[in-house]
């Protein structure tokens, strides 16, 4: 009897043993820090002196007095509302083209995905040089067609658009996931549609897009989370400038925490960031009932 009981128990115990490294990691590097940052956000803390409890002061200051907070939020939102849809659309178009059974899919796929694998620092530097207003290749190309290129990263008006353009270089990341989704759509659906006389546009709108909506949805959610974590390009290229034109939320948070050492205030920024991301994600999840199609729903 002892033996029989122990079989289940033993497996249970082994289960906990197997996941224990992850559990420890979760407590020490995720759950613990989240709790700690919530507590820190209620304090003044500059590392040199012990933290002092200040209640909600940081949050009040953030929402009512901190112009830079609102500015950073605006920069990040602008980027999100322009770059995310562009990336979603371009990634989808590239994947759609690749899925047209063109010969050498693997070859094209390799090329398009290449920029996404490369270190963000190296690609940022590279684009920084291409964007150089005086001796950069981009403005030289523009000058060939008679356009005087803008100052790009050196110009308060053009720095953010330049970063958005750069982000398009990474469409390969979303494209790969779309392509996997497209390849999973049964060809029988298209064959049936063609027999019924549906043209390509109708097939795209009635078959491809609905079946791809969960993938689009996934890319949208990860896009939102990614945008709020946007750091490398701005840190390397602009440091938030010129005149704060590219002061992304995450960069502002980084500066508050590690340049000015306002750990309490930066923690409040971090929690507000978390709540914003959470709110957006929930909003997208809620709205997904309206536009995301899951195969299981067909029956009901």
């Amino acid at each position, binding site marked *: 009897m002892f033996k029989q009981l122990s079989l289940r128990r*033993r*497996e249970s115990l*082994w*289960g906990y043993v*197997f*996941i224990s*490294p*992850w559990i420890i*990691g*979760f407590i*020490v590097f*995720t759950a613990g*820090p989240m709790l*700690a*940052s919530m507590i*820190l956000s209620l304090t003044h803390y500059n*590392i040199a002196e012990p933290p002092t409890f200040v209640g909600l002061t940081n949050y009040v200051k953030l929402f009512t007095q901190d112009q830079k907070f609102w500015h950073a939020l605006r920069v990040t939102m602008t980027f999100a509302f322009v770059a995310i849809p562009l990336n979603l659309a371009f990634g989808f178009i*590239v994947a759609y*083209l690749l899925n*047209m*059974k*063109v010969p050498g899919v693997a070859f*094209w796929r390799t*090329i398009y*995905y*290449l*920029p996404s*694998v*490369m*270190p*963000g*620092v*190296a690609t940022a*530097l*590279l684009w920084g*040089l291409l964007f150089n207003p005086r*001796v950069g290749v981009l403005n030289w190309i523009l000058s060939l067609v008679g356009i005087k290129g803008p100052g790009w990263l050196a110009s308060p008006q053009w720095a953010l658009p330049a970063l958005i353009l750069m982000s398009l*270089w990474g469409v390969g*990341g979303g494209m*790969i*996931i779309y392509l*996997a989704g497209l390849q999973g759509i049964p*060809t029988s659906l*298209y*064959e049936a549609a063609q*027999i019924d006389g549906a043209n390509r546009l109708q097939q795209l709108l009635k078959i*491809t897009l609905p079946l791809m909506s969960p993938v689009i949805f*996934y890319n949208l959610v990860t896009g939102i989370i990614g945008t709020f*974590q946007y*750091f*490398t390009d701005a840190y*390397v290229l602009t440091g938030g400038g010129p005149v704060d034109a590219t002061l992304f939320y995450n960069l502002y948070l*980084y500066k508050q*925490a590690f340049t000015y050492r306002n750990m309490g205030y*930066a923690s409040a920024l*971090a929690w507000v*960031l*978390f709540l914003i991301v*959470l709110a957006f*994600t929930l909003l997208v999840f809620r709205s997904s009932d309206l536009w995301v199609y899951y195969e299981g729903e067909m029956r009901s």
Partner: protein
Amino acid sequence: MTMSVTTPKSSGRINPRHIRIVLSYLALTFLAIFSIFPFLWMLNTTFQSQGAVFSLPPKLGDMIFKPGMFDAYKEVLTKYNFMRYTLNSLFVAGMAAIGQLITASLAGFAFAKMEFKGKNLLFGILLSTSMIPVSVTIIPEFLLMSKLNWLDTYLPLIVPSFLVGTFGTFMMREFFSTIPNELVEAAMLDGATTFRIYRTIFLPLSVPAMTTLFLIAFIHNWNDLLRPVLYISSSSLRTVTVGLTSFQGEYGARWNLLLAGATISILPLLIIYIFAQRYIVEGIATTGLK
């Protein structure tokens, strides 16, 4: 989309299908140029002498096939320590990726093949942690690392990777789930312990999945900037991303050197990508990790 049903119209007129193919090739080629051109320009610039780096229109590197062709590389590797940075990055990214493998394959196996109380809840927690921005946890993490006296060591770059690994765990769970349960049951009837089953049956089967995970984790850690910038202050401990950032700060106008450094930071990943791109692309496509 599939062409299998469209019967080509037999008349000699221009076939719309051909137009479509030509157009999509044009679009694909244009996009390929957009993807590749910056790399080619970068490579070419590393073969320019300092006097020629700013030349417009861009021309072929004036040092190509000349005795000093690789001078820019030599200079950054030796004089500006990129050899050291590259080795540092290899070590850090390699260790962090190995750590991921251990944690993720153990936890992935447990989530896929074992029964224990709270499994589903824990798995839900695991998935939701991928939604938490690093910025929310990085400040306490930094304070913890400084309390532990780990600043300016590689521990903060390696230990969190050892223990977290949300995507890795998810990926390994997906993989282990595809292995039939009968294998486990048969082995259990033979009296094998759980760990033995994991080690002798599942680990050998998961070599391709583990390779994929190792490469993805390696690339991810190689490319990281935030943590190395925060934790590393000695120049001899810099990873290649930090080395590159600070080189830009000091010698930003020396484009040939800067881009030689960038090329060096890209090279290991390019090699991995060329030889293992199928693993990487499939791993990313199936788990959704970008």
